């Protein structure tokens, strides 16, 4: 098969991978913030529920979670198509890791900021939204960037539940054409480029968000 044709088939797969990332990333963010906040501020029984979710998804393997959602849940009457199962599994998995990022970033805001907010008679909502979160958010960006790259890498797992993503197409093309070296080299480069683009995006985001927070010396 000519090289150009291989690349165009692989690019179609890359588009599917991109779609999965675009769907799973918001889900992961919601889970990370939701359960991160529950873990920090919720009353005891709910807090433990959050801990169970976090420990369970961090303690077992992403592929097992994917298989469990895809193969086992249908027996309980929850049938998903492969795409939904993939997005849900990856979103929940990366989200669980994200809760720790949220927790760490909230803890990294100096205590004086909290005390000053209390002293200035801010309400607890104002304290969270106007004082703590804006500062914590900046600290979350670099680790979230790493998690986003982890998510891109983890999307390759959905090829094992028959979603025609980049990895799946590479594998079936390789079985069909036996031009394994070119195919897998192109795939590795595509994933690498994807990760590098994400890394740049998050670096820009960090710069944007840290404006006006008095970080990194003068010239902000």
């Amino acid at each position, binding site marked *: 098969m000519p090289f150009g044709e291989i690349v165009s088939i692989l690019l179609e797969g890359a588009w599917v991978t991109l779609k999965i990332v675009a769907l799973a990333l918001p889900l992961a963010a919601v889970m990370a913030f939701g359960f991160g906040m529950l873990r920090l501020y919720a009353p005891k029984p709910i807090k433990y529920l959050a801990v169970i979710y976090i420990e369970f998804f961090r303690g077992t*393997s992403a592929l097992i979670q994917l298989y*469990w959602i895809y193969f*086992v849940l249908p027996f309980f009457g929850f049938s998903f198509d492969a795409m939904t199962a993939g997005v849900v599994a990856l979103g929940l998995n990366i989200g669980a890791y994200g809760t720790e990022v949220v927790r760490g970033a909230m803890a990294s805001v100096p205590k004086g900021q909290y005390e000053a907010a209390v002293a200035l008679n801010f309400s607890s909502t104002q304290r969270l939204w106007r004082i703590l979160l804006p500062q914590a958010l900046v600290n979350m960006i670099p680790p979230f960037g790493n998690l986003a790259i982890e998510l891109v890498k983890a999307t390759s797992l959905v090829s094992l539940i028959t979603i025609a993503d980049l*990895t799946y197409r590479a*594998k079936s093309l390789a079985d069909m054409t036996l031009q394994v070296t070119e195919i897998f080299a192109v795939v590795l480069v595509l994933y690498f480029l994807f990760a590098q683009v994400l890394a740049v995006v998050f670096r820009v985001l960090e710069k944007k968000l840290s404006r006006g927070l008095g970080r990194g010396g003068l010239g902000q």
Partner: protein
Amino acid sequence: MNGFDWDWQFTLEVLPTILEAAKVTLMATLLGSCLAIIVGLAFALLRRSGFFLIRFITYWIVEFVRSTPLLVQIFFLYYVMPEFGVSMSPLLTGVLALGLHYGAYLSEVFRSGIDGVEKGQWEAARALNLSIFDTYKDIVLPQALRPMIPATGNYIIAMFKETPQLSAITLLEMLQVAKIIGSENFRYLEPFTLVGMLYLLFSLVAAYGIHCVERHFPKEGITLK
């Protein structure tokens, strides 16, 4: 599909088979982490090389390995290596992939560990006329070891949790065996849940073990003999 209950008898039936496969999983993790430590140390030392080109190349190799999926790397090794006349068993391929992938991650841990050793130690080693090799072996690495333990341990646990991906190249590890059992009996609930629980259990035990190692590790480091 209602009332799909947990079948204890089936669970007990499949447990021995899955535990047998756990040996393969643990073996891959153990060999993989040994290789990862060697590869990681090599990359970390190359990143400290005096030649710009070596530092530059090593940086991008590490970056490339870290930002591409392990699954694709596994496929790459399994399908592409034979093209160059190197055929390996699934286990060996898996160990190599895990070792390279996590070696890239560990190199960053080792690098920051080595960077964390006080500058005065390097100067003292030079003043005592120790060779580069002796400086690393007797002065720097023993002191760098302790701070590296938690991060290294976490990566080894992470590696353990990625071993199911080796099922993609037909290695009969826990998840693959569970999948086969599932498709034979058309009951996925027990085998998959069992494997998940075993992973959770092993991870928690390993995390506790690392915590203990770190606590009991002498602060001044150990001499490498």
